[in-house]
């Protein structure tokens, strides 16, 4: 361990360290963030959900997008895996199907950051998996 010599050094150190805590910080106030859930059931994983999740997490971290990614079980859209559910605060959640890494980035850049509408939303008279029980 090297000594921290000044307040500036301490601040820099904090900046370097804080991203490791980000997931925990975000879990403190999930309601104020864009919540993205990746379906991670066997079929999702088989069709590449894990790669999509990695892409999302890395992009969010890199661009400091106020979003948090969790994984969920099967959402029941096996024909369209990998699927992700995106819940922007104050809006109804939407589900995107057939998401690969490129589309994941598109969704983040266009839908999440810019609020543009995108193709590939799975139409539902919507219920989240939680409400379905």
């Amino acid at each position, binding site marked *: *361990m090297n000594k*921290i010599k000044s*307040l500036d050094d301490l601040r820099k150190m904090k900046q370097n*360290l804080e991203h490791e*805590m980000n997931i*925990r910080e975000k879990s403190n106030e999930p309601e104020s963030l864009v919540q993205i859930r990746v*379906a991670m059931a066997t079929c999702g994983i088989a069709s590449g959900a894990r790669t999509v999740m990695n892409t999302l997490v890395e992009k969010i971290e890199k661009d400091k997008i106020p979003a948090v990614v969790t994984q969920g079980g099967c959402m029941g859209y096996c024909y369209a895996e990998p699927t992700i559910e995106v819940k922007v605060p104050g809006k109804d959640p939407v589900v995107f199907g057939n998401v690969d890494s490129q589309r994941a980035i598109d969704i983040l850049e266009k839908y999440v950051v810019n609020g543009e509408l995108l193709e590939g939303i799975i139409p539902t008279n919507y219920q989240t998996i939680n409400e379905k029980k």
Partner: protein
Amino acid sequence: MAQFKMHLLVCGGTGCRASQSEIIVENLKSEIKNLGLENDAQVVITGCFGFCEKGPIVKIVPDNTFYTQVKPEDCAEIVREHILKGRKVKRLLYEDPETQKHIEDSKHMNFYQKQIRIALRNCGFIDPENIDEYIARDGYAALGNIITGMSPQEAIDIMKKSGLRGRGGGGFPTGIKWEIASKNKADQKYVVCNADEGDPGAFMDRSILEGDPHSVIEAMAICGYCIGATKGIVYIRAEYPLAIKRLKIAARQSRAYGLLGQDILGSGFSFDIELRYGAGAFVCGEETALIKSMEGLRGEPTVKPPFPAEKGYLGKPTNVNNVETFANVPAIFLKGAEWFSSIGTAKSKGTKVFALAGKINNVGLIEVPMGITLREVIFEIGGGIKDGKKFKAVQTGGPSGGCLTEKHLDTPIDFDNLIAAGSMMGSGGMIVMDEDDCMVSVAKFYLEFTVEESCGKCAPCRIGNKRLHEILEKICSGKGVEADIDYLKNLSRVIKDTALCGLGQTSPNPVLSTIECGACYEKCKFTAIHVQ
């Protein structure tokens, strides 16, 4: 570097460690490795979540899944189901005592909804043995800002403005205490952290030290700068081995980073701490007795004045604060005095940590804003009385406090209201009693405790408490007479007025409050006497 997608926070507090949380950590790690998920999920050992009775606790973020009573053999399932496939392990989720429903995440648990965590902000959140996690949450930034950019008086003024009052029982305004110590001139001064925590059933200070030792160290250094002290001493009871271990690790790490020691952050300010161990005598938590004990003398209280701020450890000005008091300090400087004083009541600002125990569904450690009502604490956070029984009373303030009943349920909890209601804030014990509990027995329990713990230096406490106890014995064995009540009252008054230290001055409170509450009717020889 790899970006973790999930953190598995495993409670490493004393409670959960006693039920094998260390093995749980090992099992989780090895299963994660087996499945090749090392780059996805990280296992972190944290301090107490406050939910010790249902421990060991494993919390998974960012989805805030809260697993209770996890066993080592459950770990493989957690990793395979939740971490790999995103399916929560239902049977381990917390079950709401009222609805019997499994709650998916801690944000929806009544236990946490009304809590505001300031002193406990890092408990159950960071790894207490890793200073980097503390720094990542702005740790030592308050100290850094103060010693490089503020005069001691400016910092003291912020403390005064925040309205923080001591959490060790007395409720003395912390900023004023610091100001007095800063004005007393001396070649050496001391900052003492009182981690003696002797109240039966109390474990808030232990949890803070185990879960977030750096916040206390940082606050002691801030206090040192404010009052002009370069030495800090933590007086901690030897029965707290884990807290001691974590404090030592924390101090070592701070020293390695130069956050303790000479010329901290190039500011010219130097400060370091050492530990002293108490043998577990309740009276040694009283500040003058504590100082005697640190000097190697018998732990007996002395007359105040002189107060420690004038003549304390080794005759030098000494500022004594409680662990929880200190834990609030860095947060106040980071977020501002206005923020802090916006929480709470007119004369009691901020939050208080309570250890909720007794006949209540959710037993545990909670931090709530001052001004919350007992009803909210007991029936919402606490989930109501066990087994659907009726509420009778709640004991607050431990051996110095008393019982509050039905009629106090809607009183906002703060220092002054509790005293007006015949009890005390004390260090934060809260024992809930149901219709079957006997309040005289509780009063007797505390009196037995004070009789045992009285240092014997002064007669009212040494002899008076014993007499009080004998009369309670007599009443409980059915031989009480009407006159006993008056005798109890008079003797109590005398003890309170004449005892030398806080122990004796408050020891009759449990008895007095029981006489006055009149909450018990049937079977009760005690109230039977004064109802007649």
